């Protein structure tokens, strides 16, 4: 019988290894898998990580706590400069963290491409700007495009609302954000969910992330 639910938070994050690229869902606090992040901080093997996430955390919670714990070598991010992002700011100014700044839509599409088996894609976003410097460009039908590559992800940590034992997921409102594309992109996807229902209780028409993209989930 397939059952992707687990109850051991520390075991589940032990799937993150040194040097891994870890995609972490969330748009600010909305959809941030804080229980998984807190458990990841306790995982001694998780170091020299590359994290892929929209923001760089606030105060000393969630992603900011992960950065403060010295676990992260590099962050791939669209908007690290939020109010109260002092942990990131301090590390960045001291040269202790590498930043790859990516336009938000390019980040989403590079994750989607990774999960969808696309080798690279041409996007108009960023053409002629500092964030496209050194990248291949092409004019197609009179529009200028920049070549962007997928972001390969070892582990995704995401937050969803409801799961069944097959790992089918629904999300809550704007907590959905990057969850579905990160789940697609990662070799291993770990979800924290607020509710677990019997198989058949989720309307198949309303499943947002099908269980094929989810390896394991935990109710928090």
């Amino acid at each position, binding site marked *: 019988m397939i059952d992707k639910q687990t109850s051991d938070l520390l075991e589940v994050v032990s799937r993150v290894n040194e040097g891994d690229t870890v995609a972490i869902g969330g*748009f*600010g*606090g*909305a*959809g941030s898998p804080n229980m998984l992040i807190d458990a990841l901080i306790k995982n001694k093997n998780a170091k020299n990580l590359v994290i892929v996430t929209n923001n760089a955390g606030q105060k000393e919670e969630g992603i900011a706590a992960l950065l403060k714990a010295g676990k992260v070598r590099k962050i791939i991010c*669209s*908007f*690290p*400069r*939020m109010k109260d*992002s002092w942990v*990131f*700011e301090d590390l*960045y100014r001291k040269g202790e963290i590498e*930043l790859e*700044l*990516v*336009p*938000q*839509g*390019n*980040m*989403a*599409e590079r*994750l*989607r491409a990774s999960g969808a088996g696309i080798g690279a894609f041409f*996007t*108009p*976003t*960023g*053409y*002629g*700007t*500092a*964030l496209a410097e050194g990248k291949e460009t092409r004019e197609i039908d009179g529009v*200028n495009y920049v070549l962007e590559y997928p972001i390969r992800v070892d582990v995704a940590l995401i937050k969803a609302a409801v799961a069944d034992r097959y790992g089918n997921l629904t999300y*809550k*409102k*704007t*907590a*959905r*954000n*990057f*969850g*579905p*594309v990160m789940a697609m992109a990662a070799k291993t996807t770990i979800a924290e969910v607020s509710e677990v229902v019997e198989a058949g209780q989720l309307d198949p028409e309303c499943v*947002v992330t099908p269980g094929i993209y989810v390896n394991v989930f935990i109710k928090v």
Partner: protein
Amino acid sequence: MNTEDRSMLAARIAGDIPEGAYVNLGIGMPTLVANHLGEGDKEVILHTENGVLGRWIDAPEGEQDPDLVNAGKVPIKLLPGAAIFHHADSFAMMRGGHLDICVLGAFQVACNGDLANWHTGDPDAIPAVGGAMDLAIGAKQTFVMMDHVDRDGRPKIVPQLTYPPTGLGCVTRIYTNYGTFETCSDGNKVRALFVNPAVSREEIVRSTAVEVDFSGI
């Protein structure tokens, strides 16, 4: 710009947004446009980059949900008829040209429509781009909403950007406290579509670093 001028500018932009338009309002001053979109029986659908189409209000006290926010991460309450989708779909909507209008703030706009609004170029600043570059090139029309001059009184409508660009040739219209202007793909000029009656043409000419063509009004 004082609060009253901002509100008048927001109302002017809202008045130019047609019934049925799908519109993204950028973070900051452009969000004020929403306050004037509900006037009359005109229906406009808003888009927020973090995955909502519909209409919403700031969430009242007691109804705030940290999992329901707008692009500025402010808690919102959805009005009936909204749709929620993930980030790749949200940006496909922009990039794919499905949005009719996007309203953005700006540091500078060049008369050919080049936009600078993401970085001042200050080497000490923490760089952050968010959805600015996707928004700039995504909608069918990109409107800029800004002060006509910067804090030091220097023109923000310029022949060529001196700030780092966000997108090239993407701005179609510039709405300022002095008037409404159309960018031109050729020539060193903008075309005035509306002039604030409280501002003289001489003042506009003096405060704009390119030629202003008033022939259309």
